Each structure stands twice: as structure tokens, then as C-alpha cells.
């Protein structure tokens, strides 16, 4: 395939190219989600981020999300690209595009995709703060393992 619908890339993502992948004459609605690197999270300042992926499995999981979407919303077309490596503030980390004949499904399916992505796609974010760095642990943006390991309290549960 020249333009796979589900990709993990290391270069900057061009939104227009992802949109192009889902354009169809029968689709009147295209929704796009663009996830960018945010400077401030809960009062802490991010300098830059690093994303790591288990790449072949991440692509498989993105494809699986696509199949789930097509089952839930027939006549939908989706494309997802996630970037990995080092990203600066405002850089695009992920783009999700969904096209559909009608808008309601396009919104619903797009939000479904990002929620599912944050559950099952093996990609990890490491925040580099002014005063340290941390691997982020889940979609709620709680810390998984500050200092690289959970405190004992957490382990004993």
C-alpha cells in the first residue's frame, strides 16, 4: 500500500495528507482530531516529549480500532497517524481523520478512536519537565511510575 491508513511515523505529520486519505464523494463530513504537545499540564511546564512505540503491534492495534469503527458505523472511513520520537511544544503527536456521509457518526467515531487508542495502542510518552522527566502512565495523565518505579504503597494494593 502506498498510503496505509494506519501509521506510526518519525517525521512531522502533515494533516492535509491524512485528510486526503479519507475523502470520498459519498462522505459529506470529515472530522479530524489533532493531538499536540501541550506546554502546561496541571501547572507543570513541559519542555519537550518523547514518544516510544512497540511499532508493529501499535500499527496492528490501530488497524484493529479501524475495524471496530467500521463495524460500529458502516460506511465510515478512518485514518490514524501517530508520530514517535522527540516532539516540541505544539508539535503534532497524533492525527485521527474520519469521513462519513453524515456528521454525527463522524464525531462519534473520531472520539471513539482516540479513547480506544489511549487504552490499547502500545505507545508511551515521556514528559521532559524543567526539573526532571517521567514516563506517563495512562489516559488520565496520571503518573505511572515516578522515578521509574511505583511507590511501595502502590505495589502492595
Amino acid at each position, binding site marked *: 500500500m502506498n498510503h496505509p491508513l494506519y501509521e506510526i511515523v518519525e517525521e512531522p505529520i502533515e494533516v492535509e495528507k491524512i485528510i486526503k486519505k479519507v475523502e470520498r464523494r459519498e462522505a459529506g463530513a470529515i472530522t479530524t482530531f489533532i*493531538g499536540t504537545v501541550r506546554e502546561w499540564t496541571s501547572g507543570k511546564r513541559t519542555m519537550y516529549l518523547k*514518544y*516510544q*512505540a*512497540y511499532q*508493529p*503491534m*501499535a500499527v*496492528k492495534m490501530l488497524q484493529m480500532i479501524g475495524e471496530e469503527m467500521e463495524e460500529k458505523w458502516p460506511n465510515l472511513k478512518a485514518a490514524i497517524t*501517530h508520530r514517535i520520537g522527540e516532539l516540541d511544544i505544539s508539535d503534532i*503527536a*497524533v492525527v485521527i481523520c474520519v469521513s462519513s456521509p453524515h456528521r454525527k457518526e463522524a464525531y462519534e467515531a473520531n472520539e471513539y478512536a*482516540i479513547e480506544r*487508542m*489511549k*487504552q*490499547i*495502542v*502500545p*505507545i*508511551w*510518552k*515521556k514528559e521532559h519537565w524543567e526539573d526532571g522527566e517521567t*514516563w*506517563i*502512565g*495512562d*489516559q488520565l*495523565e496520571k503518573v*505511572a*511510575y515516578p522515578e*521509574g*518505579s*511505583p511507590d*511501595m504503597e502502590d*505495589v502492595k494494593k
Partner: protein
Amino acid sequence: MIRILLFAGLQEKLGKSSLVYECDTITIKVLKEQLKTAYELFEMDHVMTAVNEEYAMEDDIVKSGDTVAFIPPVSGG
């Protein structure tokens, strides 16, 4: 021989992204316990496991030739 892949915090803690574990068959549960003890990887209690790029359950059995990846809580997006 089972190939083990490590990511994120696990990878950093061990200072390597993969390991080789010599055995014929083993459940994921036991494999996790073994690694937890051997490397003091308390994080193993919180990771999901993938066998050959598919999520697997604690009771699933892996065998020589499989690739096992330990998946800390994901944070893409």
C-alpha cells in the same frame, strides 16, 4: 528460548530493550513473577502482556520461539 521486549520505564530500568529467557513453555503469570524477582521489577504487577503482537491473558502459555512484550500503561495520543 523466549524473546522478551521491554518498553518505557521497564526498558530504562533494565537498561535494555530486550531479553532472552531460556525455557520451552511457561505461563505469562509465572514468567512475570520470575522477572519481577530477578530484576526487582515491581512494575510487572501493572503491565499488560502481548504475545507475538497480540494481547494475552495471565494464564496463557508461551512457548519457545514466541516474542513476549510487556506493555506498561500506554500513554499515546
